[in-house]
């Protein structure tokens, strides 16, 4: 349990870091150059680590199924949807909806035991827990400028912008 949570936490921090790097790229290029470069770098890194760790075994694809070769396209669908969502809703709301949607679908996939995932039966505590996390996301995304006088050091820009 603790190992899984630690790995998930590490992964989340790195996602946050990568989002910043990607946005730096996006400021100077466009979304498809950014996406292509990010995925290309991701491939190069995974492939290199794979070669170091596994050597020639990296090319042994025992148990390969055809759909594995297409799953990377999901990432492209995500980029398109995200860009469209942000254009229509603005980043804050779009990202909140996206995060809550991720949670909802993860719960659905766990419950159904989809794609050979260990099935985890739905229970009241899982539903309540998920709703509480979703509420936390909504609170996080609330503009603290409304709570005048409670701002933190780094928020100085926030209120003066208004």
């Amino acid at each position: 349990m603790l190992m899984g949570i630690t790995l998930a936490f590490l992964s989340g921090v790195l996602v946050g870091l990568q989002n910043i790097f990607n946005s730096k790229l996006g400021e100077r290029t466009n979304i498809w150059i950014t996406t292509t470069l990010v995925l290309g770098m991701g491939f190069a890194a995974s492939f290199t680590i794979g070669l170091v760790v596994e050597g020639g075994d990296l090319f042994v694809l025992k148990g390969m199924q055809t759909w594995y070769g297409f799953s990377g396209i999901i990432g492209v669908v995500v980029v398109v949807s995200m860009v469209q969502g942000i254009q229509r809703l603005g980043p804050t709301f779009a990202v909140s909806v996206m995060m809550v949607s991720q949670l909802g679908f993860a719960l659905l996939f766990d419950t159904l035991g989809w794609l050979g995932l260990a099935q985890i039966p739905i229970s009241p505590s899982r539903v309540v827990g998920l709703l509480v996390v979703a509420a936390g996301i909504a609170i996080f995304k609330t503009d603290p400028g409304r709570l005048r006088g409670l701002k933190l050091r780094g928020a100085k820009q926030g209120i003066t912008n208004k």
Partner: protein
Amino acid sequence: MKGIMFALTAGAGIALQGIANARIGQGIGTWQAASMTQLTGFVTSLAILLILGRGGWRRLGEVKPVYRAGGALAALIISANMAAIGAIGATVTVAVVLIAQLMFTFAVDLFGWFSVAGTRIGWTQIAGIGVMVAGILILSL
């Protein structure tokens, strides 16, 4: 409404991608899976880029090399994510990933790292993180 549908689709896609990666990793191995999904995504994205042919490369050189190489982090992100989903399931993994991501964003804003233009942060963000952590505890009951 359309915007909501797009945002929901993006979220569903991210969740689906996580479990697909975990499944493919079990099938052919972690690094094989990470390499394959990134490669197919890269080829698809490159094809779109070439078809659109809009240019936009001119200012790529102005981006710091470390930011240009940021995509490499995905190797670690994907492998850690696969292992986490296998160990604690998709729901708790997604919840913890989101909290870590928001906590990191908060720290970046608070300390002004990476010269990111400050977004609004304050007590609502701390409260939000607290509520999310409570949610994870309830989820893992």
